[in-house]
């Protein structure tokens, strides 16, 4: 829910100038349109450059589609023709072309494709906005919009992130659907959104106080005192819930029988780091660095990387930070500046540490940047896709070389930076007894470990039901990896999706895990759950879990574990 002042954005705010265009002004008008299209493309480029985090890839696809539309002569040549031959002004020509295209979409049978007229509307609206800014030479400002609820006909998904950052409390749209991409993105941003409120633009006036409920789709204009009471009750409940969880932020993570468990955060953006601090994470267990390399025209140099890593280290205020070296393969290469050869089978190809060792200069730059950041707080380096001891030997040698060079050049770096391996290839898990001496710590990556152990591509939907961590082979590899590392007195954490999925918390405690690394948004809820679990009792079920030959039997043991926890609680 959200309560705020309505701020209307009408499609008609684009003044369409219907006056006929004198022949003498045709060239100027064409030039104005060309500039507005150019401006719109630049804006999309800026939006795309600012993306990071979990939704980045999906939003980037929308932006790419809109950029391509603006570059497509099938869209633009018709508009230029209307100006040149029809004597229309740019704004009127844009509107005519929009109406034409929208009519084609509205005649489509497929409801989803029909709804994609939104893409045309959004692209044309962006050019219209460019035209107006051009004529009034006024910069568009997204100044403080705190307390506002945006009421509009449509909003492009890429616009939602800046809106939320500017303090907009919610969005009401006269079009759209709950399954549209904008609506899905809004939910992940915790931004209440009501869609398909058809007469919203007619029924709501600027600055009206409105109450919206994103779950039920209600919009109440001038809420009554009963409505406000309902809102206050909801506010109290959600505050109480977040306070309950916030109380947990200050606490250590302990099981019911008093065993201390370490909850680390996976992080990629500044927001993740802030959330990790606020939730009381013991450190960053996985910092992915790929975003520095994706979707750009040149490789990030040592200084750029150093600044990013230092920001992270300083942001964690002395808590340890685990930076994973570049984990790219041919499947992501088309989005990066690395010229990788296309591969038939990128999951089994040149990726992770294999890529790093084939491009030692690339790795030196990254290792130097990480080492320089180590002067500002504790840093650990995590190597992805390791499958043989030799790879760690070579990485260790590279790291030593970089440290020596930096020191002799007078750079301040930490005395000791720990080097660990990601255990995500079955070979590494199986060969771990021989490799463990070389490692300062171990991080289990379950997403890939499950994929490689079961030989199931996790993006293949025909096999989605088989991609399941509850397989005897996966449980054995997990248990062995944890035990071998603990016997060698090396820290071992788990940083795949499993770590933050509360369906698996009891299972992982039973297998002996004490360090979990997860998205910071779920950390408090996992802490809350762990406090209810008795680790000593769970450990007794480990042998039964590992003996269970089928998924059904594993689930039966998990059910017994849950039942005995319930009776003893």
């Amino acid at each position, binding site marked *: 829910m959200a309560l705020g002042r309505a701020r209307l954005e009408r499609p008609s705010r684009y003044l369409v100038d219907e006056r006929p265009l004198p022949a003498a002004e045709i060239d100027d008008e064409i030039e104005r349109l060309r500039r507005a299209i150019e401006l719109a493309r630049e804006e999309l480029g800026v939006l795309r450059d600012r993306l990071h985090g979990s939704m980045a890839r999906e939003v980037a696809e*929308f932006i790419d589609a809109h950029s391509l539309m603006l570059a497509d002569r099938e869209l633009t040549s018709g508009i230029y023709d209307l100006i040149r031959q029809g004597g229309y002004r740019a704004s009127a020509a844009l509107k005519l072309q929009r109406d034409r295209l929208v009519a084609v979409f509205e005649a489509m049978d497929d409801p989803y494709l029909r709804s994609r007229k939104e893409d045309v509307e959004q692209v044309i609206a962006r050019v219209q906005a460019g035209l107006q800014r051009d004529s009034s030479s006024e910069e568009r400002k997204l100044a403080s919009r705190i307390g506002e609820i945006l009421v509009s006909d449509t909003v492009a998904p890429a616009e939602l992130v800046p809106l939320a950052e500017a303090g907009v409390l919610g969005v009401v749209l006269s079009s759209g659907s709950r399954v549209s991409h904008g609506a899905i993105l809004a939910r992940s941003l915790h931004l209440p959104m009501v869609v398909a409120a058809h007469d919203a633009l007619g029924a709501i006036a600027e600055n009206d106080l409105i109450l919206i409920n994103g779950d039920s789709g209600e919009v109440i204009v001038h809420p009554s005192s009963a409505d406000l009471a309902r809102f206050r009750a909801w506010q109290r409940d959600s505050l109480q819930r977040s306070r309950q969880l916030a109380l947990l932020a200050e606490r250590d993570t302990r099981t019911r029988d008093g065993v201390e468990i370490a909850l680390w955060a996976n992080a990629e953006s500044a927001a993740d780091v802030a959330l990790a601090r606020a939730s009381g994470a013991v450190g960053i267990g996985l910092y992915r660095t790929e975003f520095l390399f994706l979707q750009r025209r040149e490789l990030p140099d040592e200084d750029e990387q150093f600044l990013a890593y230092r920001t992270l280290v300083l942001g964690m205020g002395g808590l340890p930070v685990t930076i994973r070296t570049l984990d790219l393969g041919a499947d992501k290469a088309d989005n990066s500046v690395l010229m990788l050869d296309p591969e038939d089978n990128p999951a089994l190809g040149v990726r992770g540490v294999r890529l790093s060792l084939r491009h030692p200069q690339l790795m030196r730059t990254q290792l130097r940047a990480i080492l320089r950041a180590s002067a500002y707080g504790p840093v650990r380096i995590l190597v992805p896709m390791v499958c043989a001891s030799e790879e760690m030997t070579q990485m260790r040698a590279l790291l030593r070389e970089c440290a020596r060079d930096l020191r002799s050049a007078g750079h301040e770096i930490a005395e000791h930076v720990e080097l660990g391996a990601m255990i995500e290839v079955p070979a590494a898990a199986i060969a771990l007894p021989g490799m463990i001496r070389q490692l300062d710590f171990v991080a289990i990556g379950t997403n890939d470990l499950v994929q490689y152990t079961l030989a199931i591509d996790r993006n293949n939907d025909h096999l989605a039901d088989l991609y399941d961590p509850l397989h005897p082979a996966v449980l054995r590899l997990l248990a062995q990896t944890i035990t071998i590392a603990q016997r060698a007195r090396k820290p071992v954490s788990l940083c795949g999706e499993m770590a933050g999925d509360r369906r698996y918390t009891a299972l992982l405690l039973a297998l002996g895990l004490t360090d979990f690394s997860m998205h910071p948004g779920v950390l408090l809820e996992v802490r809350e759950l762990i406090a209810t679990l008795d680790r000593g009792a769970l450990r007794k079920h480990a042998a039964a879990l590992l003996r269970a030959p089928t998924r059904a039997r594993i689930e039966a043991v998990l059910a017994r574990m849950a039942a005995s926890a319930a009776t003893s609680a």
Partner: protein
Amino acid sequence: MIEKDIVITNKLGLHARASAKLVQTLHGFQSSAFISCRGKEVNAKSIMGVMMLAAGLGVALKLRTEGPDEAAAMAALVDLFERKFDEGQ
């Protein structure tokens, strides 16, 4: 010239983002490429053209590539359709 018949298997069909991927896939090829469907043929290098085909799940298309790298361009196109535009469904 190479022609190939294909049926759309991704759930959402040739919507804007899928069309964008298709156009981007063809960027690297010199050959021209066309898609026809229900008697209408469009330039596969134009995102508007592809979107206007209104081709949803289960629709049969004819792909045509023509030029020096027509075989590779066709292979890339077919691969994209078979990967369901990486949409996962």
